[in-house]
């Protein structure tokens, strides 16, 4: 049985990759991801993890080296953040389109300019459409658990897609938290040995990455979409199995005191922890509010979202990213669109806040809820509101 340990979340991520016995790690240092890759390099240097650690010269090359390693059938891991994820951008599409199941931890960071090493979800939203399975996490235990699950999901023969695990920079990555690191034997039982069905191999030559003229390109994209949608069943099964095995349970949209609540707040990432405290406080005051936490970002959980909000009158969504000149929060805009055709749906209010590492306190969440209710009653034409910004 696993023991509970106090460990920095970044180090726990490296330890989890070690438990998954990854073959290749290709990484480039960027704040706030550094502690993860430093610890992995040390594990390899100390002989605790038998892997090739490729200290590449950029994130573009980090993901490119991951493509190569994955294409010969190696279990491949990397981690990055903010600008690094942006530099990888075009390579991300290759991993998903060529069915290379790379697993990556993204320590969410704001995008320059001005330079900010602190957390928000601008980087996540910029890679929304790259075809990766994307999962948000809220605390250290969730990161460890979902990283373990990520290998199993990515490498499932029905999936073979890359997976991103998102966690907030500093607010989560640099916390020392008490968490359960599983035993090696448990991990070995939970993650089957990796078998890639079409590796580059001189004994059986294949061509990977041929170009597609218009007559066939659309079909390849359709196939990719069907594949990503179908991965959801495998993700749900994985979380179910994880629950029976480790007694910790995950689902695409998680709820906290949301049953029959008239007003719902929706958050993702580490902010959900503070939001829960705010909900507790408001519940004690007799307020009819609850919380939804978005875990599965891609494939988007349409059904679960509709189900979770169907009895609410107001849904307040807090995004940590801004779609400039657009609808404000990217997550909120997707939820609005998912609910548009519903007969019965809540009024959806968009807030953008917590940019570039700006914290939102319990009082902040109370304000957001109150202000959200106020906007819903006045029928304001405003598309979104930025929280806590000096004007």
């Amino acid at each position, binding site marked *: 049985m696993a023991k509970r340990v106090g460990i920095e979340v970044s180090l726990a991520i490296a330890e989890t990759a070690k438990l998954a016995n990854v073959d290749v790690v290709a990484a480039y240092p960027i704040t706030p991801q550094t502690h993860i890759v430093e610890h992995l390099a040390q594990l390899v240097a100390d002989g605790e993890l038998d892997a090739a650690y490729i200290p590449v010269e950029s994130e573009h090359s*980090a993901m490119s080296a991951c493509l190569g390693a994955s294409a010969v059938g190696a279990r491949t891991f990397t981690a990055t953040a903010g600008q690094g994820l942006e530099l990888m951008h075009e390579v991300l599409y290759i991993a998903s389109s060529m069915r290379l199941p790379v697993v990556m931890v993204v320590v969410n960071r704001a995008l320059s300019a001005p330079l900010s090493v602190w957390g928000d979800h601008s980087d996540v939203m910029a890679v929304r459409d790259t075809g990766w399975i994307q999962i948000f996490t809220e605390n250290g235990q969730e990161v460890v658990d979902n990283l373990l699950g990520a290998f199993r999901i990515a490498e499932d023969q029905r999936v073979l897609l890359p997976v991103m695990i998102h966690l907030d920079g500093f607010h989560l990555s640099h916390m020392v938290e008490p968490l359960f690191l599983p035993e090696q034997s448990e991990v070995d039982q939970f993650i089957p040995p990796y078998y890639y069905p079409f590796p580059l191999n*001189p*004994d059986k*030559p294949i061509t990977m990455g*041929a*170009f597609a003229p218009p007559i066939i390109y659309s079909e390849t994209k359709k196939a990719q979409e069907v594949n990503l949608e179908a991965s959801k069943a495998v993700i749900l099964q994985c979380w179910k199995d994880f629950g029976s095995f480790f007694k910790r349970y995950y689902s695409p949209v998680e709820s906290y005191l949301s049953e029959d609540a008239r007003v719902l707040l929706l958050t993702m990432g580490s902010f959900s922890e503070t939001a829960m405290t705010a909900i507790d406080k408001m519940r004690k005051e007799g307020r009819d509010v609850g919380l939804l936490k978005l875990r599965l970002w891609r494939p988007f959980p349409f059904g679960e979202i509709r189900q979770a909000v169907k009895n609410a009158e107001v849904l307040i969504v807090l995004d940590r990213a801004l779609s400039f000149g657009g609808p404000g929060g990217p997550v909120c805009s997707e939820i609005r669109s998912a609910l548009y055709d519903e007969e019965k749906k809540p009024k959806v209010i968009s807030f953008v806040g917590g940019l570039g590492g700006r914290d939102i306190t319990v009082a902040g969440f109370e304000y957001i809820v109150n202000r959200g209710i106020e906007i819903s009653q006045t029928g304001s034409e405003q598309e979104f509101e930025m929280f806590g910004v000096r004007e």
Partner: protein
Amino acid sequence: MEKYAIFVPRLVTKKETFAPGHRACIGCGEALAVRLVCKALGQNVIIVNATGCMEIVSSQLPYTSWRVPWIHTLFENTAAVASGIEAGLKVMTRKGKRTAQGVSVVAMAGDGGTSDIGLQALSGALERGHNFLYICFDNEAYMNTGIQRSSATPFGASTTTSPAGKMSIGQVTWKKNMPAIAAAHDIPYVATACPSYPFDLMAKVAKGIAISGPAYIHILSVCPTGWRCPPDLTIRIGRLAVETGIFPLYEVENGEYKLSFNFPQLRPVTDYMELQGRFRHLSEETIREIQHRVDKDYIKLTEKAV
């Protein structure tokens, strides 16, 4: 060379792993070079190809010209993908997850993919010391997209983005010395080659994959389409590039330069240039300037090759 002189045709495999039926232009020097490279590589190889002419002519879905495992992902990351393959194979063999032994990893890219957009990834891979061979097929411009200049385009050449005109002689910069940049990484093997000298080319490729550590081979590939020359002159123009000293063939083994062919007397550059439309507009004065530079560079090279 000596060992090849008599038995040459018998020594070369008839097996074509770069299959005919690809879509390269008539007289393509690069397709010929790839064919020769593949003969020298044999079948225990994984090829990583950058975006470019060779990728486009050989891999239209659902067809392929490749009878060896081949992967294309992007334009500028070929050396990085090769790094991942090399590291992946090594660690999986060590961990007993893969039994195949002695698989060569070969990265291929054009001059743009090598000396411009892919230079960073290449430098990184050479510095890290991966055991792989990188081959640059240099046709001296972005031919796949329509003859745009690259840093490998020679001085005075007219391309679609360095056009000759009333106010311009065409390309106004000198060709980037990519083999010297590769050699500056202190890797065990660097060589230049040209398909007009097929046996020299194949011997160098064989050497490049046999050596442990990174190897770099820079192959001049005549492009009749982009150089504005008749397609039946590909071989002759390649020879003239070498005989004029414009593209000398040499090796750098562990830092030591060795000329593959040394000519007591170089032919004048005009022998090479007058066959190509891309140099047609040049004045005698500019050609003199080019001749001067070629002579100077050749002397510098022969001095290194002592």
